[in-house]
């Protein structure tokens, strides 16, 4: 049996990089796909709306753990060769993020009155100009608290990647705890790290929400 030491702290820090990397991948790919889904859900085309709605409902109906399993074990079977863990896990988090952000942003876009689109159209602006300059800034403001709230969920949920062997923060804690037999110390430390990352985000999201409710 060994004592919890500085090298364990370093190990946690390295694992934390994976936590952030997963969140970063999820955002980097999930944000554009989420935006596309939100636009499809609010578009004039019934086909696009139906496809996007079906996708969102389907994915939201699957637990994140199920998504991870599917991508980790299923994709190699489907494509017929090994897929790096980061890719499989990254894909699962990307689609998870895209679907939730897509739904949050759809709500934001729909909360902007139709007359705002019309005002832009009447001035001779294109659909894209109307969206970028008139609708998106208002929709984003409305959806920002929920978006930040989702970010907190995402960071906490990166811990699920441990089930397919990715050594992120939670899994690293588990390993150190097993080696040192100091679970209370180690898990308290891990929890404190999650808290330190998420608490400012949660507070920020609350502030944004309060400000939004105050205005208009």
């Amino acid at each position, binding site marked *: 049996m060994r004592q919890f030491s500085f090298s364990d702290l370093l190990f946690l820090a390295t694992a934390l990089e994976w936590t952030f990397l997963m969140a970063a991948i999820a955002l980097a790919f999930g944000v554009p796909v989420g935006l596309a889904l939100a636009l499809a859900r609010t578009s004039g085309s019934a086909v696009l709306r139906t496809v996007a709605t079906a996708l969102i409902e389907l994915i939201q109906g699957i637990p994140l753990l199920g998504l991870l399993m599917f991508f980790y074990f299923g994709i190699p079977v489907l494509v017929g060769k090994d897929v790096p863990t980061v890719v499989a896990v990254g894909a699962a988090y990307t689609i998870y993020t895209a679907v939730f952000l897509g739904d949050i942003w759809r709500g934001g876009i729909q909360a902007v009155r139709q007359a*705002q689109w019309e*005002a*832009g159209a*009447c*001035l*001779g*602006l294109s659909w894209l100009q109307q969206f970028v*300059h*008139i609708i998106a800034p208002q929709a984003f403001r409305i959806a920002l608290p929920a978006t930040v709230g989702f970010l907190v969920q995402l960071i906490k949920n990166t811990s699920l990647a441990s089930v397919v062997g990715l050594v992120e923060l939670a899994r690293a804690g588990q390993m150190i705890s097993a080696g040192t037999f100091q679970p209370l110390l180690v898990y308290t430390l891990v929890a404190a790290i999650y808290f330190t990352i998420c608490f400012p985000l949660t507070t920020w999201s609350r502030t944004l929400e309060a400000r939004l409710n105050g205005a*208009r």
Partner: protein
Amino acid sequence: MALVEIKNVRKNYGTLEVLKGVSLDVEKGEIVTIIGRSGSGKSTLLRCINALETINSGEILLEGQSVSAKMDGLRQMRQKVGIVFQAFNLFPHMTIEKNVTLAPILTGKTDKQGARKLALSVLERVGLADKLKAYPEQLSGGQQQRVAIARCLAMSPHLMLFDEVTSALDPELVGEVLKVMEEMAAQGMTMVLVTHEMNFARNVATKLVFMHQGRVWEQGDPKTLFANPQTPELKSFIGHHAG
């Protein structure tokens, strides 16, 4: 050639026929007011002119060009037609200056340097040159409506449409908006407006159109029609709205 030619236009929402063969010409420089009971199709007619609504039959020509939501140059057409609604529909997240200059900049009518000058000149016309940096929510309803007018003016429109632009305003704010519209009329702007302001219809308009049940029921010189309505419907309408 009239600036706007509306030829036998029919429009229905599902089974409800809202415009039942409307024909109307608007000459350059004319001030046409449309009056009529609620539900008679006034707003729909106005919205057909810049193709916000699709007509079912007939034709609308603007400067000789047939107007529809599918036309080539729909956006160019709309850049020539300003429209102001009862709800001002300003962009709440932008300053007044940005509200007024957004479309001119995006459509290439002005560059960023010229935009400030343009904003000042159109806001001056509506008496709000000091509000450049304000946001819409900081303005009164009358001021917001004047900004909405300025936003259209910044596009140098050939035609202005107004749909009951004073109806949502507190009575004491109506005058300032009407004054701006009178000045535009005096400067030769072609205007079509739906309004309940009978004094404006009588004294400023060059043509009065009375709509009833989706039809142009009567039209002509405002003073003549007010003094001498030909149909019992217009007579009763004027009776209700006089004074």
